[in-house]
């Protein structure tokens, strides 16, 4: 086939596709013009957000509203119409304690154990996460060799599913895991990584930091790179040492970013579930039972489900998350 023939063929195809394309566009235009005539120009944004709104309504808003129904009704039935109204009984059951510092005195002691476990997890995980992410970001912000490679390495665990992360670490740390295998082959005793309460708690915090720190490191790195270099040059000319430069320039200018990182990691920490659930199952005992797993256990994992208590607990948790989100919004406003 000659070049001229090829060109003719291409032009014919182009004319054909252009005609079909124009036809399709005209058809779409006709439909949307009709809708616009029907609803007016002000109604059109609603048409465009309708698909997303439907998905949001069916899968998020409706279950959220249904959650209120379950929280104020009792029994084990799945169907709302078969559940008797119990008022605030589920909340009273959850929140009644003789001594709030001793879960054993609470009507729903497991809920309070989960609350306290979640509090210590949030404190240690967020503190550890921010500190380690900051140190990593500071190192990666320097002109070190293979900087791009290291940035990828630290970000890589973020790309993994938390379930995969938990399984990998479980294989390493469980009683018959890789690490104990190495220890015993070297003549040492096995370590109770997952069956000693303190060790299990330590490892849950460490693993979640390992899994998520790449994300926060990236945010802090962006914050560090937005600090003008001439500030450091001016400080150096004035005789400031690296520590002074860090405390007087880096930290003050990084504070808004730090607040965002703290609040984001705080919200995520309160929601801890997947990593701990797969890694320790909430044990040993209830040493790593967190709030979301408490809700899951009561609402989903048992054959005879206590939906009311689970729904009430999730509303209590939602209140905490709303407060934290409010703080985040305030922090963003401050940053802007």
């Amino acid at each position: 086939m000659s070049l001229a023939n090829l060109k003719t063929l291409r032009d014919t195809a182009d004319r054909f596709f252009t005609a079909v394309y124009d036809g399709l566009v005209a058809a779409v235009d006709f439909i949307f013009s009709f809708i616009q005539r029907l609803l007016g120009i002000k109604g059109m944004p609603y048409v465009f957000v309708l698909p997303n709104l439907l998905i949001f309504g069916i899968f998020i808003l409706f279950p959220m509203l249904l959650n209120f129904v379950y929280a104020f009704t009792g029994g084990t039935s799945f169907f709302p119409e078969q559940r008797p109204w119990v008022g605030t009984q589920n909340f009273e059951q959850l929140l009644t304690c003789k001594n709030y510092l001793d879960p054993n005195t609470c009507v729903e002691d497991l809920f309070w154990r989960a609350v306290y476990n979640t509090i210590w997890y949030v404190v240690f995980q967020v503190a550890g996460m921010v500190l380690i992410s900051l140190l990593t970001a500071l190192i990666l912000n320097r002109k070190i060799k293979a900087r791009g490679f290291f940035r990828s390495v630290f970000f890589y665990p973020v790309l993994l599913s938390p379930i995969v992360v938990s399984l990998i670490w479980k294989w390493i740390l469980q009683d018959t895991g890789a690490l104990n295998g190495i220890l015993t082959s070297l003549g040492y005793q096995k370590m109770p990584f997952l069956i000693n309460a303190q060790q299990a708690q330590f490892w849950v915090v460490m693993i979640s930091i390992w899994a998520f720190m790449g994300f926060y490191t990236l945010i802090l790195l962006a914050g560090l790179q937005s600090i003008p270099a001439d500030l450091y040059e001016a400080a150096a000319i004035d005789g400031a040492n690296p520590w002074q430069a860090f405390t007087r320039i880096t930290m003050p200018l990084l504070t808004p970013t730090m607040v965002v990182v703290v609040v984001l990691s705080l919200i995520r920490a309160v929601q801890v579930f997947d990593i701990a659930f797969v890694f320790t199952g909430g044990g040993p005992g209830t040493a790593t039972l967190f709030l979301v797993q408490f809700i899951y256990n009561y609402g989903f994992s048992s054959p005879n489900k206590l939906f009311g208590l689970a729904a009430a607990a999730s509303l209590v948790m939602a209140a905490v998350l709303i407060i934290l989100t409010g703080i985040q919004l305030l922090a963003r406003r401050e940053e802007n």
Partner: protein
Amino acid sequence: MKSARLFAFLMVVVLLLTACGAPAAPATEAPTEAPVVTEAPTEAPKEPVELRFTYYADGVEADVMKPILDKFMAEYPYITVVLDVVPYKTIDEQLPAQVEAGEGPDLARITNFGAYRGKLLDLRGYMADPAYYEANFPAPILNALGFGGYPDALTITGPYVNKTLFDQAGIEIPGEGTTWEQWTEITKKVKEATGAEYAISIDRTGHRFAGPAMSMGATLINAEGKFTVDTPGFRAFAQIVKGWFDNGITPVQVWLSAEPVNSCIGPFKAGQLVMCMSGSWQINGIVKDVGDTFDWVVVPNPTGPGGSTGISGGSAVVGFASTKHPQEVAMLIEFLIKAENYAEFSAGTLALPAHKEVAAKGVQYKTDNPDVVAALGVYTNEVTKLTEQAASLNVHPYAFAYYRNSANRIAQYLSGELSLDDMLLNLQQDIDKAIAEAQK
């Protein structure tokens, strides 16, 4: 510009093709061949019926069930039975919700009878011979099932012992009448003499815990049929197990690791454990996994002030009231409870029969392994020793309230998180609350 238009056009076409494409094929394909009608030519051919049978297997149960279902389908060619083999977790957690929502299968193999109260199909009205059905299974089980199914296997709890370790230690395996305290001491001696990693353990479930507790004198179900956990017998056995933990002679991960239900059979199969208190359903797995690695035996349940008793249990094949094919479901169940089919299942799965006619005739288990034959003999003997409360625990309508909470609460005690008093108090409250909620 032309290229951009061409690209845009192709994208639109791809999107339209994707959107307008034929719907995905259903998960189950239609049979490739039309069912062969075997009835007399004058009778109109029956509409094809598909029955969904949700099934879990501890071992080879599904493999043994399939040929029996094939026989059924050969006999009734218009009925197709689709065996959906799922993990036990699905049966335990998802199936009750599916059934509650009216989205359940036609049949299933279940263990938690209480979760399906009022949801099972009363088969008697659809069976050709309901009297045979009622006469051949224990009445308490049929009542617990609401006559909606049959127990396909009887299980009983009991201990496995590593005979090779006893032989190596030069210690004789004790027999009937040995107490839990004595077993603790003896297995400890075997562990020390052989260098085995662990001496003694029990599965992490309230079900397994209940038998020894009853042997120690616990009255878990009192005269009014209510659950009471704070009894001297329950306390005594909890303290014995705590002693295993404190003395470092038990694999603590069985009770303290991540799995919601954990068995000591893993360390036992690995040859690390002298004695594992589990149950008759483990025989297949032990045969398969231990092989010739070491010799093992089942010993009689240890005794105490409350006698010597295991806990009976087992699974049941049930039909659901929501089925669109109640007649065919009843036909299938009636086929499965025929003595020859039931016996075939028991023989192939090495399960103790709950079927009176089959039990009376005796089962020719499909094994030439003398260990298995001996183990089945010991378990069969344990059935005769069951105390009344041990036999009624599993079919108690509120057994779930004890099962759901006991393992976690006992684990809290064993990990040192709760005192014995607090554990018993909390467990009793959990049970009372769960029952009260279920009664609303």
